[in-house]
């Protein structure tokens, strides 16, 4: 008994604030497109190394909805072309907002009525639609004491009937399509759909397979995409809070401590 109390005391506070900066290596976060990528043919070298066609050498763009953060492009075309930083804050929003170097029109935050309705209390039903479990584990980690999703009024629930929205992982395998649509239909309106990870955005490494729908976008209306393979819990928090129009740092109200 005394030992278990001591353990709790020794563990102390583990919850991280959202101002935590770069994560330790070898974490790969926000890619930085160098000057060399935008001019000349370095982008072509980068594109050739990319297994998921995330890089468009013509338009000089990098689609984080396809990127699996393997780092092969950085190796192939050098840090002058693409360099992965260790910043977990990735772009989020509609599908087009995930494209680096492309036009980024509009505002990706939820409309004001949704923000006032869900901004202080958002319950999500998670559906894993044929992914590898990577994104699901990171989403599950949101509920642990370190990331503590509940402090923002957001939580995962065990039934779509209890939910305000859907959080989807995976490329949407043909076998999971019906279950996903039924879950969506079971959620009362207004409802939101959040698609996390490269698979949910584009099909990821499964894109083009006969067994998948190449992401959630072709099956359901998606309100928020968050990239990553898998996205770090801080990437998810940054995206979801940003979408709800919250200032992630103020919303955290937690002292800074690096994870």
């Amino acid at each position: 008994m005394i030992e278990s109390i001591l353990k709790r005391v020794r563990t102390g506070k583990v919850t991280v604030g959202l101002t935590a900066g770069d994560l330790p290596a070898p974490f790969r976060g926000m890619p930085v497109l160098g000057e060399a990528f935008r001019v000349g043919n370095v982008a072509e070298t980068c594109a050739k190394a990319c297994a998921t066609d995330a890089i468009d050498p013509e338009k000089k763009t990098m689609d984080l909805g396809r990127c699996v953060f393997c780092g092969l492009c950085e190796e192939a075309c050098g840090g002058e072309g693409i360099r992965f930083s260790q910043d977990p804050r990735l772009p989020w929003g509609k599908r087009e907002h995930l494209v680096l170097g492309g036009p980024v029109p509009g505002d990706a935050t939820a409309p004001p009525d949704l923000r006032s309705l869900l901004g202080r209390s958002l319950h999500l039903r998670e559906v894993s639609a044929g992914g590898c479990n990577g994104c699901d584990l990171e989403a599950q980690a949101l509920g642990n004491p370190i990331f503590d999703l509940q402090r923002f009024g957001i939580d995962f629930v065990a039934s779509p009937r209890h939910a305000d929205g859907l959080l989807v992982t995976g490329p949407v395998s043909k076998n999971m399509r019906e279950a996903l649509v039924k879950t969506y239909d079971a959620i009362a309106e207004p409802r939101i759909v959040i698609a996390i990870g490269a698979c949910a955005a584009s099909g990821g490494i499964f894109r083009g397979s006969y067994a998948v729908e190449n992401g959630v976008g072709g099956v359901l209306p998606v309100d928020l995409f968050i990239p990553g393979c898998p996205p770090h819990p801080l990437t998810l928090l940054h995206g979801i809070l940003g979408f709800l129009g919250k200032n992630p740092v103020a919303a955290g109200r937690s002292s800074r401590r690096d994870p």
Partner: protein
Amino acid sequence: MAELSRLRAEVENVGTTLLDAPSVAARMEGTGRLLPHTAKTLQFVGMAARASGRDIDARRDFPSPAYVESPPAKVLLDTGDVMARARVRFLEMRASFDWLSGVLAGATPTGAIAAETIAPVATRRLVVSVEEGWRGEIVHAAIVDAVGRIARYKVADPSFRNWPGLSFAVQKNVISDFPLCNKSFNLSYSGADL
């Protein structure tokens, strides 16, 4: 290695906190029993099988080179209750730390992590591969066509074998223990065929 011992200390902390608590033992011992006979009949796999006395481990039965050199330690319990499944997980984590420390101590990392795409090595063939995953054995089967491209690819998820066991384990248990039984098997909800 430093990272490994840091992680090990955390796992020890969480594992002993859980398994040494009398309230946890009261809840998990004897709950959700899957008898060895049932585990065998259902052809159970993975840690849930090894908690019900079924001595099956793809790392040993179909070893990849690293496991030929250093086989994994055997962890086998036979009470088949929630506690057994929790203990098997904890004991296997300990065994994995030992295994990793042993393997990494003698390792000199060389060679590329990524490989170039290899040219087709065979045509019109079926290949089956078995690997022990965290839920049990994962079976991959691929068929290549006349020019060596993959024509069909099939993955058999370990949970496909283990899901039916839950309905046996929950019998004669109170409804409030259902989540405990369910989660103790750690079954996937969206693996292939599920």
